[in-house]
């Protein structure tokens, strides 16, 4: 379980996370929603420690990882995590096959002779085949996301962090990615933390949803409870309404 207690993060005078409290249960899909700039990406970057929080605590299976600074300990921590970047973040200079197996060299003891087999296997898991020799520049947006997901899966992480997995994709590809997230949960029993604006996808894949607003969690609840909530911020966001406390806050 990942437990986040009173998490704080600021960039200069700007407070992005202002006391976030959240619990993420093992084997579940937890989706974090919220408007642009509310700190969703900052939150998951703190969880994988790409960013160091300024206050509060992050506990992973009871272990405090908030202020680990030793690079070797960080690498050990990251063995358990996979991060799907918003734009894929595939390495342009490498082929698809090399991208997928990149982490094996650093995070596992897998012999090099097995890399090709693993690349094929993980690409098949995300519905792609015979593209190992291609460069990322030759792929479509949806394919890039799936290759990036195959790269995440190659190291068999226990927790996968998805940064807006369906953004910029057409509705059919968004649905494919959502189905993939659910499949991975069922097949591999991974814990997933998804940040998204896409409410259709959020309700489809989530066990629990949380909404971030003004650096705090407005509501964190199981899917059905979240859907029925009367919290005006959450309600407005789910309905995508222009009128409500969020807009009032902006116009003020």
């Amino acid at each position, binding site marked *: 379980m990942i437990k986040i207690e009173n998490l704080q993060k600021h960039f200069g005078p700007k407070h992005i996370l202002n006391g976030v409290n959240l619990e993420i249960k093992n084997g579940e899909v937890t989706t974090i929603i919220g408007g642009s700039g509310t700190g969703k990406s900052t939150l998951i970057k703190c969880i994988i420690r790409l960013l160091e929080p300024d206050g509060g605590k992050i506990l992973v299976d009871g272990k405090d990882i908030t202020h680990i600074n030793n690079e070797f300990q960080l690498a050990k921590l990251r*063995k358990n995590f996979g991060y799907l970047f918003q734009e894929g973040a595939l390495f342009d200079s490498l082929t698809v096959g090399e991208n997928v197996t990149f982490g094996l*060299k650093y995070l596992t003891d897998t012999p090099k002779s097995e890399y090709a087999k693993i690349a094929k296997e993980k690409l098949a898991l995300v519905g792609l085949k015979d593209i190992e020799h291609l460069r990322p520049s030759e792929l479509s947006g949806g394919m890039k996301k799936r290759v990036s997901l195959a790269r995440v899966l190659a190291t068999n992480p226990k927790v996968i962090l998805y940064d807006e997995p369906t953004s910029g994709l057409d509705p059919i590809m968004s649905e494919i990615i959502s189905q993939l997230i659910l499949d991975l949960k069922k097949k591999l029993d991974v814990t997933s933390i998804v940040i998204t604006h896409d409410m259709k996808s959020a309700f489809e894949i989530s066990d629990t949803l949380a909404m971030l607003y003004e650096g705090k969690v407005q509501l964190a609840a199981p899917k059905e409870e979240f859907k029925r909530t009367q919290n005006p911020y959450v309600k407005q966001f789910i309905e995508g309404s222009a009128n409500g406390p969020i807009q009032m806050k902006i116009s003020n």
Partner: protein
Amino acid sequence: MFKKTGKFLIFFFTQFGQATEMIKDAFFWFRKSPLEVNQTLQQIVKIGVESVPVILMTGLFVGMVLALQAGNTMQNILSEPLYIGLLVSFSLVRELGPVLTAFVIAGRAGAAVTAEIGTMKVTEQIDALSTLGTNAIRYLVIPRLIAFTVSIPILTIFSDIMGIFGGFIVSVEGLGVPSSTYTNDITTYLGVDDLMHGLIKATVFAFTIGVICCYKGLNTRGGAEGVGKATTGAVVVSMVMILVIDYFLTAILHAFGV
């Protein structure tokens, strides 16, 4: 005025401090982790091998123009083109070879390094390296620092040789200097310490370019515009620093008799 100067000094020393921190990290990871051999070899090819033609061309023409200028000046002062080999070889080996090679590499390969690392930074590829168990210093910076530091001194030697050859062509064919006089000038007066003087400079310039270009790339912000700014900044700062370091290094090397 004071405010502006103060701001500039704070900016300069902040960047200098951060770049020093990057060098410290590079030495740490150089000792603690295995070298990325493939990356290093690829960078040696990109920075060094692929720069050979342009270095040979610049070296040749610099040598030719030096011989032409020296020959004409000597002709005017002493009525005959004396010491052309000496002037060309000394100028090239001690000064122009390392400086011009460093300039060309900063403009050609340094800009490419900053643009590549900068693009990786703004597209989150640098973060991706960290999530996959390595980091930018280990995977990107160390191979490039090694490639610059290995390539530039070797390219400087190529540039020196081509320059001396260019000077030879102009002296012998254009100014009528006997070929034996030109070569005797070089073999009599040019020593190993002159070559060392140039190679020490080339090595220091190489490391400086590597540090500046990697640092600028890693600190790129703001998308495509940011990559452009970082690249321009890296080339300009590298060129200015080469000239500044050149002066102080020359003074130091002279003091040590090199």
